């Protein structure tokens, strides 16, 4: 036992020593604040570079190593479903358009994208964009890429199936070639979210994919992006890319334009948080993703390490089963919204690196209603509302109604456990006997959709910055077999909200769209099918050698302009 203690102390001494060396280093956190897309994208940098010491300089190294928390599920641009895959794909493939670090959309392979009418889009392509095999990208490749994503059973490997990314093309109808550099896309309905959604579709080479097939494409991806694929190890545990010498330069409106800065980029999977941080400290990797909020303080004190955060795109709610007592009463749901101290959770659990949510959409969403304010933490109001609903505290302070206590189980997944437990604790403070149960997502999800559970703490990605992909999934009533309500775990069903969501999807006038979505948000906000909790920031860290690096809100980490000192 002594041995353990000694090692333990050794580890502590070590950390203290590391910390001590860095005592005078000021805050080097950078925050990027986005504004709605209509405005000019601006960055507010809280603190620019401070003098830092390099951890371990491997001389003459021109390879950027990025540590991911999970392995990409596969790197076919049409057929993947993980953020890690998105990051890797983003560096090999370019899309017609891309997004900056916030939510602004910029032309990439496309020279211009124009709506001919509400359902027809004309895409003009840049000339001279080369695939990694040297062939030029033309209209046929774009059409082929769209069809690969959209057509039923277009992906033939391993068994014929429909691409996982189909949803991103919305009401896609057909794509026609006007000439080698012009494509016209016909949608079956207006598609206002089209531009934001287009960011997520990357272009593959028709000639290459028809030659090697999907299997070949996965084994050796080939795109037009800043890096070309070199090799991947077992299950994409390590993906190595190298600079594409004939790169056209990327989006002209996003500086710097030109070839990638580093000659090689490596993505390596390090799932354990502590190990990922250790690998950065040891100088084995240059950038790490998904830094636990607790470690921000520690890492900031380490010389030669920079920590950056951006507002994330995965808001967290606690959804009630509104079909079931006691949550069938909106007053109870509002009361619980008032009972949770979001600021304390942000301060303690997220180390200050999160924002409170005001309703169903994250603040950065282009259609988020800025007039909605987060439910205020107000115990008295919560108790008053609960009293109106018939719940009164007994002698021990526990809420009772008709002789029964207010007790329920909050389901959650492992990564959400801390916030779920914190929420439960706060609810217990107002006399509600809430307990937490941790599930695996795949197990609990069908139960939630079957309305078998009582409450669920979880998140839902909102990386398109548009309500589409989000509102219809979370807050539209469930329509089995469609994308509507696929993530509606509360069972919330409001006819008016459904109408508004549907109307918003096809309304092309941004102002009118706003009206629709603002009304929907207000309704959801008032009826509170969930406790609107928080939006955690994405935290990344890098060694000081890494320059010009910016975490991406939508996790589409672009290494194109990152340099190594």
């Amino acid at each position, binding site marked *: *036992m002594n*041995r*353990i203690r000694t*090692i*333990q102390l*050794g*580890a502590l001494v*070590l*950390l203290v020593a590391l910390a001590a060396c860095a005592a005078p280093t000021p805050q080097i956190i950078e925050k990027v604040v986005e504004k709605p897309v209509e405005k000019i994208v601006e960055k507010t940098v809280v603190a620019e570079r401070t003098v830092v010491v390099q951890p*371990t300089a491997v001389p003459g*190294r021109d*390879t950027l*190593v990025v540590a991911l928390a999970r392995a990409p*599920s*596969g790197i076919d641009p049409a057929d993947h479903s993980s953020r890690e895959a998105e990051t890797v794909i983003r560096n090999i493939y370019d899309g017609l358009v891309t997004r900056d670090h916030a939510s602004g959309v910029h032309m990439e392979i496309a020279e211009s994208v124009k709506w001919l009418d509400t359902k027809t889009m004309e895409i003009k392509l840049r000339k001279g964009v080369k695939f990694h095999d040297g062939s030029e990208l033309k209209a046929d490749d774009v059409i082929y890429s769209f069809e690969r994503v959209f057509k039923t059973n277009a992906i033939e490997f*391993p*068994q014929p199936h429909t691409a996982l990314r189909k949803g991103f093309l919305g009401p896609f109808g057909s794509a026609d070639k006007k000439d080698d550099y012009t494509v016209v896309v016909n949608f079956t309905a207006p598609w206002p979210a089209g531009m934001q959604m287009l960011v997520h579709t990357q272009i593959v080479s028709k000639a290459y994919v028809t030659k090697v097939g999907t299997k070949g494409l996965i084994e050796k991806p080939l795109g037009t992006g800043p890096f070309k694929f070199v090799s991947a*190890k*077992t*299950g994409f*545990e*390590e993906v*190595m890319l190298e600079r594409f010498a004939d790169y056209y330069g990327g989006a002209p409106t996003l500086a710097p334009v030109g070839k990638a800065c580093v000659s*090689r980029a*490596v993505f*390596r*999977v*390090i*799932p*354990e948080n*502590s*190990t990922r941080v*250790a*690998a950065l*400290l*040891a*100088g*084995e990797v240059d950038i790490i993703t998904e830094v636990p909020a607790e470690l921000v303080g520690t890492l900031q004190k380490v010389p030669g390490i920079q920590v950056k955060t951006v507002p994330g795109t995965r808001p967290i709610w606690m959804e009630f089963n509104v079909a079931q007592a006691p949550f069938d009463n909106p007053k109870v749901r509002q009361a619980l919204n008032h009972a949770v101290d979001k600021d304390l959770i942000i301060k303690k659990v997220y180390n200050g690196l999160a924002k409170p949510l005001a309703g169903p959409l994250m603040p950065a969403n282009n259609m988020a209603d800025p007039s909605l304010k987060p439910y205020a933490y107000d115990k008295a109001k919560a108790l008053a509302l609960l009293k109106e609903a018939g719940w009164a505290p007994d002698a021990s302070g526990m809420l009772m109604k008709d002789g029964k206590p207010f007790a329920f189980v909050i389901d959650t997944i492992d990564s959400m456990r801390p916030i779920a437990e914190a929420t439960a604790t706060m609810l217990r403070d107002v006399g509600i006997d809430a307990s937490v149960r941790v599930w*695996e*997502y*795949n*197990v*609990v*999800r*069908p139960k939630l*959709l079957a309305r078998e559970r009582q409450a669920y703490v979880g998140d839902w990605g909102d990386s398109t910055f548009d309500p589409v992909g989000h509102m219809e999934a979370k807050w539209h009533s469930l329509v089995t*077999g*469609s*994308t509507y309500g*696929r*993530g509606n775990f509360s069972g919330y069903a409001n006819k008016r909200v459904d109408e508004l969501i549907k109307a918003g999807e096809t309304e092309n006038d941004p102002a009118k769209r706003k009206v629709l979505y603002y009304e929907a948000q207000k309704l959801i906000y008032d009826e509170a099918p969930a406790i609107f909790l928080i939006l955690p920031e994405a935290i990344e860290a890098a060694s000081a050698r890494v320059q010009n690096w910016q975490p991406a809100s939508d996790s589409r980490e672009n290494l194109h302009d990152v340099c190594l000192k």
Partner: protein
Amino acid sequence: MKAVKILERMLATIPIMFGVAIIVFFFIRLTPGDPVDIMLGRSAAATQREIEQLRQQFHLDEPLHVQLGYFLGDVLRGNLGYSYIRNKPVVELLTERLPATIEMTIGALLISLIIALPIGILSAVRQNSLLDRVSMAGAFLGISMPGFWLGIILILFFAVRLQVLPAQGRLSYDVHLQEITGMYVLDSLLTGNWRALEDSLKHLLLPSITLGAGVAAIIARVLRSSMLEVLRSDYIKLARAKGASEWGVVMKHALRNALIPTVTVVGLQVGVLLGGNMIVETVFSWPGLGRLVVDAIFNRDFPLIQGAVMIYAITFVLTNLVVDILYTYLNPKITL
């Protein structure tokens, strides 16, 4: 003669493997509810077609014995089903990751032997000395030390603080190695790639120590107690009476006999090493079976779990086959 016996012993493992497959088959019967529902929970938009596909794979609509027949037939043909999460045949996933796990297991076994043999021998020879007491106390701790904890401490010390050993992975990104067996150390040797050899050994060291520590403790204890027993025996007295040096007595006469019970225990410990992989592979980002299984568990990837458990069991059975054969060479009395 011996060869025939060994062959017999090898053949005897075949029914065991069959039994393993049957037990693994029944795993899916343990699931409360419909396994297909649980598996497809992941994609809400599970099409009828996907459901049908799954039902077909498991032959869930057939009677049990027919299902078993299909399953065994598939296993015999090397078809362990299809992983939903990874979109790949299970066999492919397992075979591409097995070498990494085997490499680490062998590394851990070697490390544990390197630690355990001298400690076990010395503490028996110097029974009740300070060395004996300290190393036996250490052994008790080593058995119950949580693997991930030791791993992180080792990373902090050797990778972060001293920066002499890597914290994660199997090979540095800038070292090129032509893969033949998938076991990097072996591949480096086969291709005469010394740089890769050094690099892969460095990467192997910390995980092996982490994984091997507990096993080293057990082996040291077993070796010590059997050494003590052997050292009391008459033939050791005789060896001394012959005038043999103490080194000769201990290393030749005693060790050889003390190894006999130890070898059996080492064989059993391989099971512990295989189980420990899951935790250590996660800590050190080692792309082996263990991590695959952990992922599979959280994703309810039943075919993958079945396949992995089966592969583990088969590896274990084969290891013990090797141990049995080794045993006959160590112990002349046993002819299998």
